[in-house]
């Protein structure tokens, strides 16, 4: 019973990691950059929903839509003003810029919303279920998180594989120059990728804050790093990889907390990551890089 309980909360946490990791991995696949500000977009999404629902007292649905819209806009804006000028620069320069954007978002939130943590009202109104005479309780947030992440993953896979913009994204990630020659609008495609990634981050942020209802300017930092780990774990650039990596990471984290040590759970997660990368140097589903001589 314990195992089942740890597993379910692990899948729920992993689902959130996976949604964030999808944003990382899509942006990486297309723009070849690690968007370290991604975790902070989550936090902005949380604050947006908080402002709309709790401060202005609107319907949770409006909060969800509003926060997704704002994050999408934010993602595109960041790309336009901070990353686009550096399209041809060294990857490390873009990485540092992303870190700068991350500081910027955190400190903006600190100035606007204050340092004190806020308690987030769950956007989920479904009641939890209690099984086996109350021995196993699955909260509504957990259920919704699992369902939403599965639905989004399926939808995203279909989008990338079956639609025209999806095909354009794959083409750009394969070879930017060739895609451009074939008439793909590279800038628009990259902007679209940032839009989708940031929208996913907003959803992940809402689920994160609903399950663990505390919101501060630093809420997004740690999940961001974990999700980045998950993306690499699954093979960065690969969409199914990010999903598997995220969910596995959540499960490992929760099981090691439950059975081994809560203090060392991070050390355990990272050790397993290292071992997996030693066996499969490009992650679980990563493409094998062929070396040109």
């Amino acid at each position, binding site marked *: 019973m*314990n195992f089942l*309980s*740890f597993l379910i*909360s692990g899948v729920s*946490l992993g689902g959130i990691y996976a949604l964030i990791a999808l944003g990382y991995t899509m942006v990486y696949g297309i723009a070849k950059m690690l968007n370290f500000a991604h975790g902070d977009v989550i936090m902005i999404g949380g604050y947006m929903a*908080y402002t709309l629902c*709790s401060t202005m007292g609107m319907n949770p649905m409006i909060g969800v839509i509003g926060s997704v819209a704002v994050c999408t806009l934010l993602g595109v804006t960041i790309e336009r003003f901070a990353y686009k000028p550096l399209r041809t620069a060294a990857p490390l320069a873009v990485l540092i810029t992303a870190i700068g954007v991350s500081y910027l978002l955190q*400190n903006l939130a*600190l100035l606007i919303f*204050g*340092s*004190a*943590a*806020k*308690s*987030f*009202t769950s956007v989920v109104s479904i009641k*939890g279920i*209690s099984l086996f005479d*109350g021995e196993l*309780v699955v*909260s509504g*947030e957990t259920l919704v998180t699992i369902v939403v992440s599965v639905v989004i993953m399926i939808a995203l896979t279909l989008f990338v594989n079956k639609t025209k913009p999806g095909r354009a994204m794959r083409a750009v990630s394969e070879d930017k120059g060739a895609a451009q020659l074939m008439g793909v609008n590279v800038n628009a495609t990259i902007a679209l990728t940032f839009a989708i990634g940031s929208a996913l981050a907003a959803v992940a942020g809402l689920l*994160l804050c609903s*399950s*663990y*209802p*505390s919101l*501060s*300017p*630093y*809420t997004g930092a*740690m*999940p961001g790093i974990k999700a980045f780990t998950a993306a690499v774990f699954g093979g960065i650039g690969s969409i199914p990889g990010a999903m598997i990596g995220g969910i596995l990471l959540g499960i490992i*984290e*929760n099981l090691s*907390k*439950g059975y081994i040590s*809560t*203090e060392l*759970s*991070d050390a355990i997660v990272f050790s397993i990551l290292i071992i997996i990368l030693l066996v499969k140097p490009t992650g679980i589903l990563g493409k094998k890089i062929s070396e040109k001589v």
Partner: protein
Amino acid sequence: MKKIIALLLSAILVLVCFASCGSTEEAGNANDEAVIRIGGIGPLTGDASVYGTAAMNGAQLAVNEINAAGGINGIKVEFRAEDDVHDAEKSVNAYNILKDWGMDALVGTVTSNPCIAVKDEAANDNIFLLTPSGTAVECIDVPNAFRVCFSDPNQGVASADYIADNAIATKIAVIYNSSDAYSTGIYEKFNAQAGVKGLEIVAAESFTADTKTDFSAQIQNIKNSGAELVFLPIYCQEASLILNQAKQAGLSVKFFGCDGLDGILSIENFDTSLAEGVMLLTPFSKDAQDEATQNFVKAYRENYDEETLNQFAADGYDAVYIIKAAAEKAGITADMSASEICDALKVAMTEISVDGVTGEGITWTADGEPSKAPKAVIIKDGVYTSMD
């Protein structure tokens, strides 16, 4: 081109440093002016900023009140707060800035680890240090350092005593933050005292600063352990998450906390029904009916955000009044140097008794520890109610 820019920048930097020296020199000379300078250090940005902001607001409020009432021994007081981001290195930088400014006494630092680093610097320079909320034992192990709050061991022992003496529970689970000195400090002493008092610790769960959102595994383990009471020697932000997740997981036990839990009711948008029946030992409660507390709470609300009105704000507020009391006792005058002030205050601290918002008749021993009685409060109908 790059070289020129690099050289230019470093030259500017050196100049700026020189310039800042110049201005501090002036500040140093200006020390003769009739004013007492009190410095404050605490995290004003970063994830511990809520504590620092509260304490510095509280101190500023006290300084404003004192100045309005004519100052200390008729001398005006100036207060300057510097940010340390809850980092020892930055804290020493902040201390040096305040020293350049001509600080006569320090209210700080707010958090324990930076405080340990700063107290050594202050001891070297012989500047009086009064930490509002540095709870670790090592924070005040120099002669010139005192504190307003309880120490960690003090709280752990008091909590175990209270639970045992009032027969609240015998099977106890603990959730503590293993990456935080405050939390581990209380837990260790609580654990030791629990053994003495015949309390059984059935589960000791922990979390770290990096894993402070998901508590489902810890709660599940506590559920299995059959604990009657969960002891939470942690801060209110994590506690609010634990209470929420405990409810979701169907864990219904009593919760008991220390002063870090104070402020849980004022977390914006927190569902206070979750905290119903939570007990805590705290020196300050903003719903207390005594006049001093009510005046402080009213004045704080007029000037600052409600969400930082917590025990830290009260500690910062009291710290300034304690310095005032000691300075008056010692007969501090404006022409004394920081070192002379420190020597005088050190002696005066052991002779005064202060009625503040965090306790009545607080006295100090030469080792810097305050002696005051913790108040046990229980949350009933969404407000703190005294248990005594």
